[in-house]
């Protein structure tokens, strides 16, 4: 840049004359006089190891887009991988709303000045409450694994017990997040995670093993629907009953896009539901589209122990006019620091707006249809793949959009199959062989409403070719 002053379009007061006028106003000759607050020994005197600036917007755009263009997207290739982040259609209206400058740029503005943000948040909570069948939905944060871990901690605070039971079919990635939140077991105040088995034939939980493991020392029993391996869990109501018989809470992890066709956790009698709203209108963003929710019934004890922000509808001086206020603020870390319940921070506000728009346009019929299409097309894909010599579809036929495909009979590893599928412009299923060795060389395939019959048939013919 040489000696030319640095005047940047994002920094109005970098104009030298303005800068000088402001300094003059303060009686200073340079900003260095303010930086004298930092003692010399703590001052950084070197040059930051950062490349020279790309100043013109056009040039910067070319540069960064050039890097991004090295990626291959799930728009260019067919993507049959889910496993925690799923490719569903994102309605254009969702992107239109969340790309509004007001929503993109808002942060913690006040009840009045950012009213629309709070109203949308309340509508999100209200609509998700209808889907999961609970009266309370807390403000979402990070992702499913995180809110599952927080639900365990919440159950521990409610019951005073320090162990939770989790099916061993749980997503290993989600489990890692849970473990981090539950602390090493050597710590006195840790929450201990114990496992109950899953049925290797069906993919559902092993109820007999749950009965054997469960006693009055557990804070909660957790299960997922669908399971990480894709199976629709038929035993939800029985899990709830067993948990309650032992004074434990029943915590359901759910994929909310299934709830147009599947029985919601509230109706099954669960105490807490958690899960990810990413399927409800979020692009995948390499996993950045994820956001975890917690919902429960309207019980003051639960509300008091909920770690996330809760928003109540309020009234104003004018009849019929509504505002939204944060309830029980002293309960969160913003209200009470280390005396609060876990912590809150910048979470995933824009995604709740996206999900609100998504739920509003989908409506009850949209959710029913998207559920039916996921079921039908994933089963069609399973049928075609299962017909390929050496390829077998495992576990129960009761799945929603994901299913396990085994390649043992073809003598191929999942890694080999997936590499070769790239040549057919296809992202294959998630490799399960390391995490679930009992399934052999198996992959978790995902087929949503996004892909049509012809694309599914293209997948089948490609798999046939690469496994031959």
């Amino acid at each position, binding site marked *: 840049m040489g000696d030319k002053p640095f005047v940047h379009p994002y920094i109005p007061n970098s104009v030298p004359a303005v800068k000088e006028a402001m300094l003059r106003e303060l009686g200073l000759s340079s900003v260095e006089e303010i*930086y004298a607050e930092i003692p010399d020994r703590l001052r950084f005197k070197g040059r930051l190891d950062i490349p020279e600036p790309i100043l013109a917007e056009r040039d910067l755009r070319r540069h960064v887009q050039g890097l991004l263009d090295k990626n291959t997207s799930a728009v260019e290739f067919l993507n049959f991988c889910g496993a*925690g982040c799923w490719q569903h259609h994102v309605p254009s209206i969702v992107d239109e709303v969340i790309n509004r400058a007001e929503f993109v*740029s808002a942060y913690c503005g006040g009840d009045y000045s950012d009213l629309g943000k709070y109203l949308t948040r309340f509508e999100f909570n209200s609509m998700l409450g209808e889907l999961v069948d609970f009266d309370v939905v807390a403000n979402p944060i990070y992702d499913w694994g995180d809110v599952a871990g927080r639900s365990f901690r919440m159950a521990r605070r409610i019951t005073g017990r320090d162990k939770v039971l989790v099916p061993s079919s749980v997503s290993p990635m989600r489990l890692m997040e849970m473990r981090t939140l539950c602390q090493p077991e050597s710590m006195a105040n840790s929450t201990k995670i114990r496992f109950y088995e899953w049925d290797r034939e069906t993919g559902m939980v092993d109820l007999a093993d749950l009965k054997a493991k469960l006693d009055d020392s557990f804070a909660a029993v957790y299960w997922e629907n669908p399971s990480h391996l894709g199976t629709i869990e038929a035993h939800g109501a029985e899990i709830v009953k067993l948990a309650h018989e032992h004074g434990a809470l029943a915590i359901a992890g759910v994929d909310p896009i299934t709830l147009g066709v599947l029985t919601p956790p509230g109706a099954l009698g669960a105490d807490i539901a958690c899960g990810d709203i990413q399927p409800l209108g979020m692009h995948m963003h390499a996993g950045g589209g994820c956001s975890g929710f917690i919902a429960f019934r309207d019980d003051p004890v639960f509300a008091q122990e909920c770690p996330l922000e809760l928003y109540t509808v309020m009234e104003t001086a004018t009849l019929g006019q509504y505002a939204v206020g944060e309830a029980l603020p002293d309960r969160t870390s913003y209200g009470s620091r280390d005396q609060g319940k876990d912590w809150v921070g910048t979470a995933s506000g824009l995604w709740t707006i996206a999900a609100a728009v998504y739920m509003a346009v989908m409506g009850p*019929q949209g959710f029913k249809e998207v559920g039916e299409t996921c079921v039908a097309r994933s089963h069609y894909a399973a049928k075609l793949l299962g017909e390929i010599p050496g390829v077998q579809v495992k576990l129960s036929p009761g799945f929603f959009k994901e299913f396990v495909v085994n390649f043992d009979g073809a003598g191929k590893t999942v890694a080999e199959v997936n590499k070769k599928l790239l040549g057919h412009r296809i992202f294959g299923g998630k490799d399960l062989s390391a995490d679930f060795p009992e399934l052999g060389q198996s992959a978790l395939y995902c087929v949503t409403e996004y892909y049509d019959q012809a694309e599914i048939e293209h997948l089948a013919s490609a798999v046939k070719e690469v496994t031959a």
Partner: protein
Amino acid sequence: MTETPQEKVARLAKLRRDGGVLRDYRSPRYDEPFIMEQGTPGERGILVPLAEEGVAKAVGEAADYIPEGMSRAAAPVLPEMSQYQVLRHYLRYSQMTLGMDLGSDISEGTCTMKYSPKMHEELIRGHKAADLHPWQDEDTMQGLLEIVYDTGQYLKSISGMDAFTLQPGGGSHAVYTNACVMRRHFEAKGELDQRDEMITTIFSHPCDAATPMVAGFKVITVMPDENGYPDLEAFKAAVSEHTVGCMITNPEDTGIYNPQIDKYVEVLHDAGALAFTDQANANGILGFARARDAGFDACHFNLHKTFSSPHGCEGPATGAYMCTDELAKYLPVPVVTKIGDRYHLDYDRPESIGRVRGFLGNWMGVIRAYAWIRTMGPEGLKEVAEISVLNNNYLDNLLMAVKGVSRPYAEGHRRLDQVRYSLEQLKEDTGVGTEALRDRMVDFGIQSYWMSHHPWVVPEPFTPEPCETYSKADLDEWAAVIKKGSDESYADAQFVLDSPHAQPIDQMRRTEAMEDPGQWAFTWRAYKKKILGKK
């Protein structure tokens, strides 16, 4: 002589530039019903693909695959509304949201509300960023990995640290990551039984106290001395063989740079403990001071604050966690590495804390931060810091001239990026406190200010942060709004206490709903049962 129209336009423009005239602002007020109350049965907002005939013929009815008892009995009570009506509803809500782009958001101190360049939004919305699956083969994500890796290198230079992760989904999440890394460090050393206390300060963000609690530690909070610095003697007294480390900010929320910060770190290191500094607001020190140079073992940045990624109604956000080589082995998996000219996701890290988040992180924020750093360059980053600090001191000069405003602590010392002021005098004189003034200032089209995290150590606090984004005219206007609020308070306090007057709604009522289980309603269905049902 009567003024010509041209003269009037010029006079008003000059007054506005000098902050002499405030906006005659009216927020949109749509009186918009909740979406749950709109629409008619049968309307559709979007049509979704249905299974083709061939698919249906091959597999039969979807219902046949759903186990008994698992078919939803009653449809969810969601809106049935056509697309234009849904769009209009949420556009109205967006118009009733000032946000930062409209709100001249000097107001939200501790949040660094800087301009988020629009070009970056185009980058992250394209399918090459938005439509990537996290389990894609890393060979198909080399561009994204390169951006993440290089951003990590830049942040290493800015902090002086050796290693990074961009997995945390926000600033507090990065701070939590630190608590877990320190926990793992002492677990590996076999000292976790002995060390169970984390030290923070009251002017550090609440997450510096809350996240070590979640990690299982006891938290000791050091209060400020009479100058506003964390009391060094109290700090020393808190450190012992039980200390895990500290999690503190510098400058703290007061904007006061602690010139002895390295001494605090020394005290910790002498006791075998670790030191972390929360750099959520690093704007004032970019290129001027580095965490590592003060001896810290770890620090973090908020890419949505200092590095321009937008705040998105409170996320998704990105926390950058930085640490020394000694702690690098504990970073969450996967770590992004570079071997030759290829980028990798390294999962083979046996001493890792595991994960704080699924998949890779909110890398939309990394792409934006990368673009921002690349357009600033090394000198630009320093210019950002300089102008932030200059803006803050310029605004301070204006605000300290406003009746009822004071600036506690460290008299004679200049603040860096922000200031915590007090309206205690205004409250005493007029009965108008910081909450009432906050609800009045928005009537001028300015975003409501951040008061303080709890507890309010500074009485009746407010905390502006006029980062490099704001022009001199913006600063003048902001100060003029505070002055207007003060003048009004002294002239007609009740008018201010009845605020707001130009907002989408009138003053809020039934505030007991925030605490009373009989009145709170977290969803519309709860409100219908509990409140409307009773009426």
